[in-house]
């Protein structure tokens, strides 16, 4: 289904070394607009490294990253953000002593007009208004956007981080284990949010260890093993056993045959 479209985000032959350790050994990645694509792999498979390369945190040693077909070289996360790529970090990357509104706008504060704005005077009412709207849109109940984030529950904090990414991303959102620290209800809510974000035409790249969750929420699944993409599945047509097999390599050959194999076309 996807091959006819231009990938929104693609990586080809990405190599990243840390000293003698080669975390990525020519990894590929493809993501299309409006889909949820899960990136899975065993510990040490290179998931985090790949996402760090894709989101501009790390520069690849070899290989290239393309956004809408254009080769890009990110100088840092800000570069990626300028291209409309946002990340929800596993640690959430929030300033716990600041309120939700300030966290939503961290680094992108809204200033007032005129001279006051030139002096960096914040337009707090505007930021709070937008924050309330952003949270309402995600269905997040936040009684007080002026309370420090540290006083919020884990799920609410998660929501603040997700809301920030959603508010500013217009192409891709990376989510690193977004539900790892959440309870059942909150987990369902976050996954619901992921779905709704994708329906708006944004691509969500989900890193997760939770196989049922991966299958329930994503459209496609890409599997990394030992720094390479070993398989790519359509979520509806695969099973947990297949995914685990591809991750661990125990079902290496069958996995490659069943999955929509991409190894061949990477060589271009």
């Amino acid at each position, binding site marked *: 289904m996807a091959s006819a479209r231009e990938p929104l985000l693609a990586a080809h032959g990405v190599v990243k070394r840390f000293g003698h350790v080669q975390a990525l050994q020519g990894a590929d990645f493809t993501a299309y607009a409006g889909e949820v694509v899960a990136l899975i792999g065993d510990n040490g498979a290179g998931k985090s490294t790949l996402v760090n390369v894709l989101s501009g945190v790390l520069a690849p040693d070899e290989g290239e990253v393309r956004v809408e077909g254009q080769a890009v070289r990110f100088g840092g996360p*800000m570069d990626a953000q300028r291209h409309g790529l946002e990340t929800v970090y596993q640690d959430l990357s929030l300033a716990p*002593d600041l309120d939700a509104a300030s966290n939503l706008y961290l*680094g*992108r504060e809204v*200033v007032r007009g005129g001279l006051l704005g030139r002096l960096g005077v914040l337009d707090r009412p505007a930021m709070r*208004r*937008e924050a*309330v709207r952003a949270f309402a849109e995600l269905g997040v109940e936040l009684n007080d956007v002026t309370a420090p984030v*540290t006083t919020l529950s884990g799920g609410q904090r998660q929501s603040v981080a997700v809301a920030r990414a959603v508010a*500013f991303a217009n192409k891709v959102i990376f989510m690193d284990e977004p539900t790892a620290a959440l309870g059942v209800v909150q987990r369902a809510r976050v996954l619901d949010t992921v779905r709704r974000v994708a329906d708006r035409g944004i691509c969500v790249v989900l890193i997760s260890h939770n196989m049922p969750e991966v299958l329930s929420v994503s459209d496609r699944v890409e599997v990394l093993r030992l720094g390479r993409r070993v398989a790519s599945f359509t979520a509806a047509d695969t099973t947990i056993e297949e995914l685990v097999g591809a991750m661990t390599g125990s079902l290496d050959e069958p996995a490659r045959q069943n999955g929509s194999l991409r190894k061949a076309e990477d060589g271009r």
Partner: protein
Amino acid sequence: MTADSKEVRPAAAQQQDPPAPGGTRTAVPDWLRRAAGIGELWTFVILVVLVAFFTIAAPGKFFTQYDLTQIAVNAAIYLVLGVGMTFVIITAGIDLSIGSVLVLAAVAAGEYNIHHGGPDAGWGTVAVCVVIALAVGAGWGVLQGAVVATGKVPPLIVTLGGLGAALGIAELATGGQDPAGAAATHLQNSLGFGKVLGIPWLVVLAAVVTAVFGLVLGATRFGTHTLAIGSNPTAVRRAGVGVGRHLVTVYGLMGLLAGLGAVMWLASYGTTSIAGHSTDNLKVITAVVLGGTSLFGGRGSVLGTVIGVFIPAVLTTGLIVIGVQQYWQDVAVGVVLVAAVYVDQMRRKTREQA
């Protein structure tokens, strides 16, 4: 940056009716809740209790205009230093060097003054001296900030080194003796002893500095980034803020205010007092922490520091007025300081467990 958000937002607005403004907020005024939340309220209560106690204990003696003015003048320089220290501590840093930087700036300005007219120097010389003091302070602060920003040496050590080095340079330049004629009479008669509407210029200057920096911390992007860096520097870095540059600016401002403190000291006392500033750092840090600013960064306010500066000042004056040895002040402040940090720690723990 803001344009981006506006492009994205309208789509959201159409999907869902925006909640009524204030609908999710409680009736308690915003500023009051924030004041209470930040932990400066209880220090303010302590200050009020102290003033009330001394007023009752020494009726007609403590709460006189003379005492208030004297308290304010004594506190003015510490207040200026404390304002800068508030920013530094909010970034989870510390600056031990301020007393030495003050001395170095005073010596630099004083030496220029001695060679350009001494006590009888004209207004031009006074102006140059002020610029020299501010520049030396800011320069030293920027230098320390640059080392802190590398992240290789903790601020405690950077500024401990700065403390020794700045004082050493000041002593090298003067041979360790306070030079005569360091301050011009013009400076002393204007900023030092002058008054406007009955309020000493020193107090007016300190009040203006406090107000400006208070607004910067509470209402501007710079202030928000200062708080955010103390709260989670990694998050701020990922958000694209130049954390290193920000730290250099914060330490630079601290130095600038130490330079201003030097000008105020010269104006007030007419001498560089090379040996008289070795405990400025501890007094100022005490005041900032008493004012509810967290030593662990991320939280604090300039208003709190104002209260923190006045508690020791009121204690000193009050104890003298009621005829108790003023050294009790040191004991009292020490106990309150430890209690303040204890409370801060407890509050932090309960919040994180919540």
